[in-house]
């Protein structure tokens, strides 16, 4: 049985559906809201809080939709295909691994960037960073829920590409 069959994201016969647009509108507001809250509660923006929100969502996705174990590469493929497709309506474009615990995932059209106006190169990093924390947290949460401890670092080499560097720990 493949990972895709074991963890189904919404293909259950009795699943309820809502509009993806409603979901997209919520996704688009998560980061600005969390930043506003951090600012008012802690007096500064706090990217770790956004990462944590993503992590919660990642854990919840596995809790709700499946709890199987495959090898780490299978789990990465599941994230790249199923999870990304259902969350962001596209798959991760590229998955590389050194087969020694390091995985590099590249999304060349990251969805949460779509609503942002195209920043100048010097603004890019500062503006984009909080938006990267959310999916990085999701990946870390899913991996953790499936038994893989990992650190996930996200960066944007150029708008609207995002690269996730995942280092698994043994």
């Amino acid at each position: 049985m493949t990972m895709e069959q074991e963890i189904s994201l919404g293909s259950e016969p009795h699943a309820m559906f809502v509009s993806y647009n409603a979901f997209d509108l919520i996704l688009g507001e998560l980061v600005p809201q969390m930043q506003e809250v951090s600012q008012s509660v802690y007096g500064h923006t706090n990217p770790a809080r956004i990462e944590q929100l993503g992590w919660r969502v990642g854990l919840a996705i596995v809790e709700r939709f499946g709890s199987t174990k495959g090898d780490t590469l299978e789990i990465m493929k599941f994230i790249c295909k199923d999870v990304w497709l259902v969350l962001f309506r596209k798959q991760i474009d590229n998955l590389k691994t050194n087969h020694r615990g390091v995985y590099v995932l590249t999304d060349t059209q990251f969805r949460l960037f779509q609503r942002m106006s195209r920043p100048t190169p010097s603004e890019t990093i500062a503006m984009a960073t909080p938006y990267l924390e959310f999916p990085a947290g999701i990946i870390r949460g899913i991996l953790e829920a499936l038994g893989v401890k990992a650190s996930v670092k996200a960066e944007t080499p150029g708008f609207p590409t995002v690269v996730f560097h995942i280092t698994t720990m043994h």
Partner: protein
Amino acid sequence: MTSKPLKAVGEEVWKTKIDKVNAELVALTYGSLVAQLCRDFENNYDRVNEQLDKMGYNIGLRLIEDFLARSGIGRCSSFKDTAEVISKVGFKMFLNVVPRVSNWSADGKTFSLYIDDNPLADFVELPPQSENLWYSNIYCGVLRGALEMTQMQVHAEFVSDVLQGHAATEIKVQLLQILKDEIPAAEE
């Protein structure tokens, strides 16, 4: 208004023009956000409610364009029409539920939406001592923001919620004034 019954309009839009996603995914994402807000505000639920309302307001401002484009709904002739459109087309098209519209005030300016099957509240259990938390308060903001974009200034608030052990989930919507045709100032 279109000549077709609104219920049929809503159903047709839902069937033919909407990209759909598993409701549980949306519910768990929203739930993660509410949980995090409760932590950040140290269970000050008034502030959580306020933040959810604000978030909804921002969404409402953006959502109306998509709503009008997909539904083809034109200007409503009365606030009663507006209420029916919100329920049968708006809620239907975004959340696939049709809240009951009822409890009209004598002056026709206040009504209630009863949401029997709240998709956001699936599998939700509120923490103890959270009587002040209106978990789905984002709806109030969405209504306020979307209606403001169509020149109606409203106040929307939760009256009761089955999550709080109440018999029904009820949002009261009150028309405050009809705005003049101008671009509303963005709220920050």
